[in-house]
């Protein structure tokens, strides 16, 4: 059939305004896309659309918005947020200190590597959330168990990246310090730690992400407060707008914590050629 062979005329390229106007145009596209998604959400939920996936049960954006405004006016919302933040900062903080410290120790000492590595390799493949029963058995309070789960989840990514970063350090930096008379402590403080920071921060970035997942899951399983607990609670009492507000809160807090780590990392490694370029751009 000749009709099939007929070439359809390509539509004229969308006018993007070239490179100079590009920035605004791209933001316009991004915002429009988001708005369209919200509109589509409103349409399928308000219209009770059932296409195998049952949108009629999902709350509409307007309902979610009202619920969000209501919760923002209640102290318990802030208590939940604060509780979850305290848990993640405690667990993540302990993981950062121990992960960096032990990562350096394992990276530098063959003996410590032989002693500790096998233990870590046995525990590491177990997803932290699978440790919930153990945490409940081990710790007197739920609170401590949740912090423990958060700690375990962030600990391994931080440990492993730190160890790799320490092993990958060019030996010439260390040799240079040795030959102007620097000792062990000086080498650790002036070469190993600062030199490993780029790798350490990639571990911290991964760590903060997984520790959010774990703090929320642990709260859902065994919390008495916290964003994860509140979200699960809303689900059990069939408060679907509450569930969605919980999800949005979790997302916002996750973004906030990850972005803070990311920012700190860029500051701590501002000497890297790639970051130097960013600064002068």
């Amino acid at each position, binding site marked *: 059939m000749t009709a099939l062979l007929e070439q359809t005329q390509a539509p004229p390229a969308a006018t993007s305004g070239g490179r100079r106007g590009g920035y605004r145009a791209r933001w316009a596209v991004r915002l429009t896309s988001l708005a369209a998604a919200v509109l589509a959400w409103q349409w399928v939920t308000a219209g009770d659309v059932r296409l195998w996936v049952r949108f009629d049960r999902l709350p509409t954006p307007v309902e979610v918005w009202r619920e969000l405004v209501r919760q923002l006016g209640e102290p318990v919302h802030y208590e939940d947020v604060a509780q979850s933040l305290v848990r993640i900062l405690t667990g993540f903080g302990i993981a950062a200190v121990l992960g960096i410290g032990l990562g350096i120790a394992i990276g530098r000492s063959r003996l410590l590597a032989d002693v500790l590595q096998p233990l870590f390799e046995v525990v590491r493949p177990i997803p932290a959330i699978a440790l919930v029963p153990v945490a409940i058995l081990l710790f007197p309070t739920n609170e401590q168990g949740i912090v423990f789960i958060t700690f375990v989840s962030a600990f391994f990514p931080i440990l492993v990246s730190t160890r790799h970063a320490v092993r990958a350090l060019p030996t*010439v*930096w260390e*040799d*240079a*310090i*040795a*030959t*102007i*008379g*620097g000792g062990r402590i*000086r080498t650790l403080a*002036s*070469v190993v730690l*600062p*030199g490993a*920071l780029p790798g350490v921060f990639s571990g911290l970035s991964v760590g903060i992400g997984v520790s959010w997942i774990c703090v929320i899951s642990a709260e859902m399983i065994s919390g008495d407060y916290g964003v994860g607990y509140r979200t699960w609670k809303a689900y059990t009492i069939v408060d679907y707008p509450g569930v969605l507000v919980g999800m949005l809160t979790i997302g916002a807090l996750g973004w906030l914590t990850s972005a803070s780590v990311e920012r700190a990392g860029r500051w701590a*490694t501002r*000497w*890297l*050629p790639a970051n*130097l370029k960013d600064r002068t751009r």
Partner: protein
Amino acid sequence: MRFELSGVTLGYGGDAVVGGLDLEVRSGEILVVVGGSGCGKSTLLRALAGLLPPRGGRILADGQPVRGPSSERALMFQEDALLPWRSARRNVELALAIRKVPDRRRHSERWLAEVGLGEHAARLPAQLSGGQRQRVQLARTLAAQPRAILMDEPFGALDAQTRAGMQQMLLDLHRANPATVVFVTHDVDEALILADRVAVLTPRGVEAVLDASAATKEEILCSLRA
């Protein structure tokens, strides 16, 4: 500081790089080591610095066996050895901090001025040229005030004029404060300008040690080819 090497074999892992090295470095002299690329000049300096234990033979510094690195024997590396997260000034300050010198900032700025980098003190290594980075490393090595300075092609990346200036600076410093200098280069002209004595290194060992005031370029080139 005086070095004595007798029957020294050096190498990495399974392979020996040079064997049968016999050499004396006299206290307070500038000994220039010349040799082809890959013949083991940097390896020799690493051994003198105590960073590479010899496979065989003995290395003595002032009569004592060299057992490890020490601030008395500072090595200026051929490769880039500055800490990239520290500015030029803070790299030099490191040597001063190890010596616990007070008033480090002023001293390190003085050393940087000495190598012609006074106005670049605040820059990071990545913001300096290759030759400037070498000079910062030189300043850091000198700031350690070692009794033996081991220099591995320190002026390799410099233009002729800056290089001549640096050579003069080294000679002036040496006259004022006669530390022992072991200086590696593959530039025979540079060797003759700086050296009290010139050692010609080949993979078989030290081929010849010539008195720089009497030796000619041809003699050195001839032993290099041998």
